[in-house]
């Protein structure tokens, strides 16, 4: 009985502690704040793209003054290790271009899409960095919070969905390059099945897979694209097993929209062809490499920083297509089917000339429902919020915990 009594007293003590702190929190309520605005963060994509539309052309906020070239300190934050291929590496090539032009730049790699990112940016700002390039989607809620808290710091969020007076977003129309890579794959595949390893069913990623599939089926109407999710941007072990599984289930070409080429390397050992992503994979898998949708961020970053110097930087959303050179298709290697290079070049010309719309009709989803009529096309807003697969994709849009 006595033990019970003691225990009860302890429980009461703990409760008093809780209450006490609850009381004191009420008192300091007013003084605290500063961070985290009231608006719901994490950005509903619909609102977001509307936001992006509205703020295009808006003036930069009062806190933002042009920065002289020698005073610019730009920091790039990557979700994965830079490595020598893939998404982060593509951005890092852009950073190198800035460094070569004499700007002071640094990068921080392997930063998860958690509070860790917020902390890293605070560290950077504490070290005097005044231009932030956040390159991963999941940094969103933290970038928004930080942009409110540091109104005189330039924030730029790649693939982001929310803009603010000091927060711009930018994104490549890589889906156009995916369409071209799809053409190469459609011509090359013998089994008629192509494996696609991807991270999360975000609209951005879904649009890549869709465009790739449309490209493949434009030259090979019976081709199917099998999708495997890894639930991570950087997880070589899972990527590898996903690549192997795709080959074992009949795919003879593997592409991955991820930070490494682990899936393609594993698939190549089983005899599959490889399509890279974000940067060229020619050096990694010379014998089986076909091509890759690639980024050339150098021009974008040098212009963006120059805008800050000139005072012409705008907090808008930039969606950069083949015509800007920010996205492109890696020159097709000799491993490709005969005539593929010509077809891809012709399609590229047509897209740049505006004669070919990747998401132009007629498009059905993979459950047979008509989505885009023959004379229609998806708008940018629809592309940025897409949550269905086109006909020919063998996969489901759901994030499933492993």
């Amino acid at each position, binding site marked *: 009985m*006595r*033990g019970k009594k003691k*225990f009860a007293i*302890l429980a009461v*003590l*703990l*409760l008093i*502690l*809780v*209450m006490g*702190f*609850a*009381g*004191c*929190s009420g008192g*300091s*309520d007013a*003084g*605290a704040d*500063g*961070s*985290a605005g*009231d608006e*719901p963060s*994490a*950005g*509903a*994509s619909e609102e977001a793209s509307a936001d992006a539309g509205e703020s295009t052309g808006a003036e930069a906020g009062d806190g933002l003054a042009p920065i002289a070239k020698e005073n610019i300190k730009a*920091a790039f934050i990557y979700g994965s*290790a830079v490595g020598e291929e893939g998404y982060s590496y593509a951005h890092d090539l852009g950073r190198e271009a800035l460094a070569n032009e004499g700007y002071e730049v*640094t990068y*921080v*790699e*392997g930063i*998860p*899409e*958690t*509070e*860790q990112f917020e*902390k*890293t940016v*605070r*560290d950077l700002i*504490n*070290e005097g960095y005044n231009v932030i390039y956040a390159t991963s*989607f*999941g940094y969103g*809620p933290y970038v928004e919070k930080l942009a409110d808290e540091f109104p005189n710091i330039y924030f730029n969020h790649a693939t982001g969905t929310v803009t603010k007076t000091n927060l711009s977003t930018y994104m490549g129309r890589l889906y156009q390059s995916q369409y071209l890579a799809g053409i190469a794959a459609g011509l090359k595949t013998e089994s008629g099945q192509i494996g696609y390893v991807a991270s*999360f*069913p*975000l*609209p951005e*990623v879904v649009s890549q897979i869709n465009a790739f599939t449309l490209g493949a089926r434009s030259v090979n109407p019976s081709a199917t694209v099998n999708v495997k999710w890894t*639930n991570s941007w950087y997880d070589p072990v899972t990527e590898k097993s996903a690549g192997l599984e795709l080959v074992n289930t009949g795919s003879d070409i593997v592409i991955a929209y991820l930070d490494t080429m682990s899936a393609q390397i594993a698939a190549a050992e089983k005899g599959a062809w490889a399509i890279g992503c974000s940067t060229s994979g020619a050096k990694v898998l010379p014998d089986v490499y076909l091509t890759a949708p690639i980024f050339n961020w150098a021009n974008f970053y040098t212009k963006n920083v120059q805008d800050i110097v000139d005072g012409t930087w705008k907090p808008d959303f930039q969606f950069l297509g083949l015509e800007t050179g920010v996205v492109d298709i890696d020159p097709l290697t000799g491993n490709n089917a005969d005539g593929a290079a010509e077809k891809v070049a012709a399609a590229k010309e047509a897209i740049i000339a505006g004669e070919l719309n990747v998401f132009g009709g007629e498009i059905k989803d993979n459950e047979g429902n008509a989505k885009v009529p023959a004379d229609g096309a998806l708008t940018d807003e629809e592309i940025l*919020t897409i*949550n269905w697969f086109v006909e020919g994709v063998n996969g489901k*849009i759901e*994030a*499933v*915990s492993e």
Partner: protein
Amino acid sequence: MITIQKRDSVTRKQGALRQLASIAGALMIGALVIFLSGYNPGTVYIEIIRGSLGSGYSISETVQTVIPLLIMALGVTICFKVKFINIGPEGQFYTGAMAATYFAITWPDLPRGALLALMCASSIAMGGLWCVIPALLKVKVGVNETLVTLMMNYIAIKFVAYLQYGPWKDPSVIGYPVIRQFSQSGILPDALGVHSGWIIAILLLIGMIALLGKTKYGYKITVLGENPNTARYAGYGTAKLLVSATFIGGGLCGIAGFIQASGVENSLNAMLSNGWGFTSIVVAWMGRLKPLPIVAVSVLIAVLIQGCTYLQISMGVPYFMASVIQAIILFFILGSDFFMNYRIVRRQGDKEAEARR
């Protein structure tokens, strides 16, 4: 044959001196390894100190790391005191954070004080429960608590991942598994530039010192840990004592989860703990299960963690290298701690035994 012998016990002053000497020695060996990795150890150490204590900002970041380490180490301590080898602070942390998050996202509009109190109380209950389950298994059916607490970590972490990908996924973010951010009511207010978790940590520290040093309950716990038979003979009701102590220990780890979710992340995800639950076991052990030394060790480890992350920014040390440097220093500090308490001797008789073979 080589054997490991425990060193003779030493006075408190000697012990403290040895501890300092061992850390100094560890830093020197660490310096050698850092040098071999191609960095100037002097600069690395200076940058670690500068990055963790060099400015008001860095100190506040370091304090933010001390808070969960300290609270969880206190939780581990009270479990270890009753010889309950709790390897589960990570799991107790996550169950606590989960309970707090449940209230934060279910009733975001409650007044701040009420919501935070609910979140805190529920985190204690869930963290405590997660630690009491293995304690009951140990008392009732004699299951080894080390394994059970360890395994229950993974259940908790995977369950958070399930919530993040499933029921608690923010539907407004298409396709991306993230739990929504807390409303302002669910966020710990700041006090002196750091979230007010530090006030909770200090209160808990004082409470723990008083509990262990000044109360009959603390005395009973110590007796139970030192000699269970004595405790049983004295009629302490050992099973209840063990269960209540583990409840407090798990509850503390749960509070740490609440503080990190509410004060730091303003949300919950499966990477919330940074693995610090495991680190806290090291902290408690290095602090010899005594509250004040545990504070010192928490600060030391927090300086190391914050300083090494800062290396990436201040020196451009690549991410993996910064982690390696952190691991090297920690490894040698732990290693030296071992050599301070044990010595390796060649046993006399073994030479003859070898000769005979």
